[in-house]
């Protein structure tokens, strides 16, 4: 064999082997890091191994990625009345703008796999995106004269998508509010009978009446486990007539009933569908939703306690099976894993003080501020025809940018101006709000100035 032939054979064999190797990784292999073009953003790294979550069609173009973005984030944007929806840019009169910045596609601003240019908000963001359309803002708002082109969003005044707590009339409505509001709006749970939401609830089998130990219908040897039976008997499950079989039995398509030793979120979903949806959409359950199994604290990018590293996150990892203690789930369950400075500082904070007092009976029910009060708040939701207060288990909805917390969380207890300042103070966030904000966002002052100028002199105007 000549040298030339040998080189060709070597090249062909190597190419085939490499192709087989990479096809194996893409189609079958679990670890796809080798084919990833770059590290993923904070919000997506958990599902990095599920390429098809975003790249659902190998032969599709930008529309495939756009539909992946909308599938996961569209609902949230709609709920927040996205200030810049795609529909604002599809009119042909925006053709010149689209040429500069195609705001119809999420990826025009937010690129994935580009860790080096990913900003503090967990996404890539061009600095001049506001300037393209709003460069003449000072003509109508003299207060904005001389402001740098990149300060619109990063000064805490505006948000490209969610301005629900930042728009001018809202700021005007909440001018001069106290740091701590007189009436705290700490929502209590379930304002309507939960069963009215569950049209499929098998009420004949599980009528709403308190159950006792004698009535347990477990098929396993649980009768002998005093801890389990006691925990169940003292929960709202037993109080509402929810027996062991309600969670532990599973009916197959041919009506065959099997006993499940360790029910997962699929069992909980039967009665707690909104909560499970939030869990699966959020950071705790998104891996399960992507078919990658449960998230473990050891896989997290944030600091986690070593003792928690091997835990597998599920409904019961926070709520603990049989006990379903919501107070435990609101603080101790979080601190059992999270080990960053903000979490470590919670027990020295004024917020914890209110929680401690509530637990000790020194303060009214629902006045304490737990981890969950801010990160998984109780929110008014519409389920079918009913408006109910439910715990939002998708913490992404309140996380970043943190202005998203203003309306649903901070303003339940604090005035708007104080809340905006507090959320803009990184050191204050790190020490878990011990002290007063050391930064001040001027947006509310500008609104006040404009209001004074607008009013006639006899009404207190300038």
């Amino acid at each position, binding site marked *: 064999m000549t040298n030339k032939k040998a080189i060709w054979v070597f090249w062909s064999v190597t190419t085939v082997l490499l192709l087989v190797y990479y096809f194996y990784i893409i189609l079958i292999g679990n670890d796809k890091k080798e084919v990833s073009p770059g590290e993923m953003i904070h919000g997506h790294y958990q599902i990095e191994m599920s390429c098809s979550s975003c790249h659902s069609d190998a032969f599709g173009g930008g529309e495939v990625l756009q539909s992946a973005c909308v599938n996961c984030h569209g609902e949230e944007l709609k709920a927040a009345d996205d200030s810049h929806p795609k529909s604002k840019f599809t009119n*042909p*009169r925006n053709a010149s703008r689209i040429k500069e910045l195609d705001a119809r596609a999420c990826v025009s601003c937010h690129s994935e796999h580009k860790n080096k240019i990913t900003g503090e908000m967990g996404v890539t963001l061009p600095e001049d995106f506001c300037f393209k359309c709003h460069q003449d803002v000072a003509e109508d708002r003299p207060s904005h004269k001389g402001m740098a082109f990149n300060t619109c969003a990063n000064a805490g005044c505006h948000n490209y998508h969610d301005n629900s707590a930042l728009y001018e*009339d809202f700021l005007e409505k909440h001018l001069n509010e106290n740091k701590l509001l007189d009436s705290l709006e700490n929502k209590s749970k379930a304002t309507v009978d939960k069963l009215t939401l569950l049209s499929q609830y098998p009420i004949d089998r599980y009528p709403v009446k308190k159950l006792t130990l004698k009535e347990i219908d477990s098929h396993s040897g649980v009768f002998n486990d005093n801890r389990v039976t006691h925990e169940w008997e003292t929960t709202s499950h037993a109080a509402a007539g929810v027996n062991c079989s309600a969670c532990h039995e599973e009916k197959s398509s041919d009506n065959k009933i099997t006993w499940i030793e360790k029910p997962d979120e699929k069992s909980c979903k039967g009665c707690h569908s909104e909560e499970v949806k939030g869990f699966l959409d959020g950071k705790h359950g998104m891996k399960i939703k992507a078919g990658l199994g449960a998230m473990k604290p050891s896989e997290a990018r944030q600091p986690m306690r070593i003792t928690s590293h091997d835990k597998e996150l599920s409904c019961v990892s926070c709520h603990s099976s049989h006990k379903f203690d919501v107070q435990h789930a609101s603080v101790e369950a979080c601190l059992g894993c999270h080990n960053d400075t903000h979490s470590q500082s919670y027990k020295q904070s004024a917020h914890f003080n209110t929680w401690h007092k509530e637990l000790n009976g020194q303060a009214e029910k629902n006045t304490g501020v737990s981890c969950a009060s801010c990160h998984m708040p109780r929110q008014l939701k519409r389920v079918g025809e009913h408006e109910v207060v439910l715990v939002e288990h998708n913490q992404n909805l309140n996380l970043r940018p943190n202005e998203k917390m203003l309306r649903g969380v901070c303003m339940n207890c604090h005035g708007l101006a104080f809340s905006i300042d507090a959320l803009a103070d990184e050191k204050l966030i790190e020490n878990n709000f011990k002290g007063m904000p050391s930064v001040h966002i001027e947006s509310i002052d500008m609104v006040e100035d404009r209001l004074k100028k607008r009013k006639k002199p006899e009404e207190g105007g300038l």
Partner: protein
Amino acid sequence: MKLKLKKVAFVGVAGLLTVLAGCSESKVTGIEPKTMTDALFSVMEADRTVYTKLIIGRLAKKEKVIKASEHWKDEKALVLPAQMFRYGAERVAEKGADFSYSLLSLWPVNKQNKPKTDVEKEGLQFIADNPGQNFYGEETLGDTKYFTAIYPDIGVASACISCHNDHKDTPKTDFKLGDVMGGVVIRIPVKG
């Protein structure tokens, strides 16, 4: 087998020729862009007037049973007529319709709704200077040529006038009933 193939080929060629002959004889028919935009505007204008008079004018202004507000979600109020119109335009765009429309003005409350293209500037000025007349033109935006029609948007109810005159962001505070307050811009892509 060979015979069969020949038969199929013959029928195919004959069919193709018939179709081609038919094409050369028939005229391309369709609706003129102006007829189309005039028809679209008549529906838009009618719906807009009905909403303004029968919903906003009656319920919010006359009988005062519910408010109308720009922040209708927060205020649990009726959407303003201009918002109603825009949301409709956005829904049409979402459906991928082959035409688009928008509500613009030389005196917009939201500065993003002032005229931007040359045809918009010329057309809005024309309908303001020539009450009762429409403006028609052509323009190329991006890579597409459009037939652009601009129709006057008249203040038909006192609610329109007072709301615009009193709005903190309005550049004009002396609108009167029957004034041209802006224009409805309808675009249809055309060949050429």
